[in-house]
């Protein structure tokens, strides 16, 4: 442990924290401390114990053994309220705001609106709620209207509200607040991430931060010290100056990164494209979009929020309406395009909202794998459980799904492992013609991300045409054979990466 700032009382001290679920030891004797005005990066694969640790810090779980000290005082959180009261605020991975309430109320939730000056005997004082909220918003440099309804705000602004709420935890007590940012960037576009990084630097002036992210470059850029977890243990606690990205990867995963080799083939116009769109329009979403993807190739589409790329790929999958234009699958134009037809034609879609659209959490993992393309697992209307188990087990072994238990409900797996199962559902199709991937690596740790990327390549080699909406521009440039840039619903440029070599800046300029 670093002992350079002994003079100050640490914001947080964890001493031999243990937590088990049944026979599964989720946390094994975790000890570390956080100093005032320090940004700590917390990294680890899905299932390494990060979430459990955060849930203990936020009062959702209770420790089995070990002690927690906040600002020099020993604490034991029985519920989220007590954690908030001691000065720990969280920006959750999935936004946790009340979309039907005002910005100010959402912020007030954390400063204990039940007892503070903003409400007396259960009666609201709107004036003081709005005033407190503007003050909090101005400390993070946001000019949001505290009277606005959160549901009407764009995503980035909502994140500002989350941050404002997190730092308002102990507006009264004056101690150093600890803000936990739980993978806040996993759902942000690149330029939005920069806004967030600026906020981290602001928070650092008056508080401490635990920053959880799967993107190692972000961790290196924003943190003072990095804590690595693996299999419930703390495997490293290093100053950012003492470690490299490659070392972090190895510490997290346990082995070195495998290089993903990628040989690009030049365009061959004689082939019939697996999927082609001509002058595709959907009012106020996208217009005049034309492009094609051939078998065995990967086209990455990049664009900022509101570029219409999500709507475009959803329309290709039949999940959204097409107003005009032609969609050709295997060279043949299609009509009355709907999801069942798309699935039958061999198109697969891995949605960004995995939990909402990509999986049926209440069914077993095996059932999810064979749900859409059962293969041998169904004969007519009858299901064959034995064949289903065989198919699912095969995918579990190939994709290294953990825990390796196909009969567990899919909803109980961690995000990365759920995503592997969602991928398997489409890969199980014997004639997968087109695979549409909407942010396939969102929220995945580097190990899981590598497995998913390898499967994308494999599907590509087997002859599927891939349309990828990547999380980052780097990812798009690394994975793609071709990159399309979209802005305000139109394709502004197309790069054939076998010939062109655009930089991320080139792409960004055409996006905004």
């Amino acid at each position, binding site marked *: 442990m670093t002992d350079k700032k002994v003079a100050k009382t640490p914001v947080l001290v964890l001493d031999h924290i243990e937590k088990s679920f049944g026979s599964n030891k989720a946390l094994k004797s975790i000890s570390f401390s956080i100093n005032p005005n320090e940004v700590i990066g917390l990294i680890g694969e899905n299932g390494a114990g990060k979430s459990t640790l955060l849930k203990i810090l936020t009062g959702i779980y209770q420790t089995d053994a070990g002690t927690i000290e906040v600002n020099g005082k020993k604490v034991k959180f029985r519920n*989220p309220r007590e954690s*908030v009261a001691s000065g720990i605020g969280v920006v959750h991975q999935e936004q946790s705001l*009340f*979309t*039907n*309430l005002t910005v100010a109320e959402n912020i007030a939730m954390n400063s*204990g609106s039940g007892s503070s000056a903003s409400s007396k005997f259960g009666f*609201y004082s709107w004036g003081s709620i709005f005033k407190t909220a503007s003050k909090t918003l101005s400390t993070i440099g946001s000019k949001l209207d505290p009277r606005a309804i959160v549901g009407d705000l*764009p995503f980035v602004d909502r994140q500002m509200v989350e941050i404002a709420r997190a730092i308002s935890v102990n507006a009264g007590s004056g101690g150093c607040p600890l803000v936990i940012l739980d993978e806040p960037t996993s759902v942000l576009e690149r330029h939005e991430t920069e806004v967030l990084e600026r906020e981290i630097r602001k928070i650092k002036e008056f508080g401490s931060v635990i920053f959880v992210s799967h993107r190692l470059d972000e961790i290196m850029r924003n943190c003072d010290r990095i804590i690595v977890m693996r299999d419930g243990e703390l495997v490293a606690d290093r100053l950012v100056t003492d470690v490299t990205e490659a070392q972090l990867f190895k510490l997290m995963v346990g082995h070195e990164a495998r290089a993903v080799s990628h040989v690009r083939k030049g365009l061959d116009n004689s082939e019939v494209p697996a999927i082609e769109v001509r002058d595709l329009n959907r009012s106020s979403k996208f217009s005049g979009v034309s492009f094609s993807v051939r078998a065995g190739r990967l086209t990455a589409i990049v664009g900022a929020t509101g570029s219409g790329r999500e709507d475009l790929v959803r329309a290709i999958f039949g999940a959204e309406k097409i107003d005009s234009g032609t969609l050709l699958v295997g060279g043949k134009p299609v009509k009355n395009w709907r999801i069942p037809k798309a699935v039958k034609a061999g198109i697969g879609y891995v949605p960004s909202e995995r939990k909402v659209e990509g999986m049926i959490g209440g069914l077993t993992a095996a059932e999810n794998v064979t749900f859409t393309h059962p293969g041998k697992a169904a004969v007519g209307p009858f299901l064959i459980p034995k064949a289903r188990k065989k198919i699912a087990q095969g995918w579990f072994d190939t994709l290294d799904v953990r825990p390796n238990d196909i009969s567990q409900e899919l909803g109980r797996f961690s995000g990365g492992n759920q995503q592997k199962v969602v991928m398997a559902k489409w890969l199980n199709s014997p004639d997968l013609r087109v695979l549409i991937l909407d942010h396939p690596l969102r929220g995945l740790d580097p190990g899981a991300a590598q497995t998913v990327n390898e499967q994308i390549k494999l599907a590509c080699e087997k002859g599927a045409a891939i349309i990828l909406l990547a999380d980052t521009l780097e990812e798009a440039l690394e994975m793609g054979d071709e990159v399309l840039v979209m802005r305000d619903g139109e394709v502004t440029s197309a790069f054939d990466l076998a010939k062109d070599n655009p930089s991320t800046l080139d792409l960004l300029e055409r996006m905004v």
Partner: protein
Amino acid sequence: MTKAADGAKTTAPASQSAGFKNTALGSFISRYAETLALIGALLVLVLIFSNLNPRFATLENLQNLLNQAGLPLIIAVGATLVILIGSIDLSVEGVMSASGMAFVLMSANTRGGTDFGIWAFVVAITIGAALGFANGFIFTKVKVPSFIVTLGMWYVGLGIATIMYGTETMPFLVDDNLSTWASQINFGLPNNFLLAVVVAILGALVLRFTSFGRATLAVGNNEEIARGNGLKVTRTKIVVFLLAGAISGVAGIVATIQLGAANPTVAAGNLFITIPAVVIGGTSLAGGKGGMLGTVLGVVLLTTLNNGLILSGVSPNFQTAVSGGILVIAIIATAWSQRGRLRISK
């Protein structure tokens, strides 16, 4: 790169809010679109019915119409609270029967017995609150869907009323001042409608200006987040059901006063109009969205529809089917803007 990102951030919201929506009138219209649509629909109905029958647009009929709207509106205020947390209260009619029966039997009535005066009101409303508390307690603690709990409580309430009713003759209220109170006109409006408006205003104030009211909206929007924020979710839900029960108790008193007597079936038919009225008023069955103003408009709209159909000479044989059909159409019209290809309704 940072510079480019700044540009993107500042231009996007500006382009969204530009144009019509940016004007004061535009933002007013977009904010109150649903309310304005309801008022528009109400005006259209009034126009149609006044043309079909000149008797529709008279002061007498207006007072009659609002007299009819009073009782459903009182119930709808409680129903709005319950629907705002994403639950449903089907026990209304049973609770009303039990409260109404207790009220009449404890007041001066044709069966004799003691006149408990003000205590008759207190006991009747307490019975409502107790049944409502039972709804909320079973719903939250035993974790049974509110749909089932309240369906059962409906019949429990009816049963209590039937037991109290016994085998004797129907108890009529003796005090004429009391039994004609509901339809007496004050400030140009019937008393029961005035009472309903007071209840609705109280409901609106609670929703807007109390921690409990805001917690109700928060729980309806997302229960898990509410819990994560340290809100007392279970307590909020129980209080919502308790209030709804107490309001049903008030409605039970009003219903028996209107009838001038107590009868276990005094409340029959009230549930059918209130829940659709709340939904047409813009309160989402999924919870978290809606309010009292919409509920008032929804109740007035549906009451106008019923009143107008009768005056337009629709045969009583068709009345029930026509009301049902129009309800479905009205709900479709309300929900039209929220439909989507991937929207799931259960």
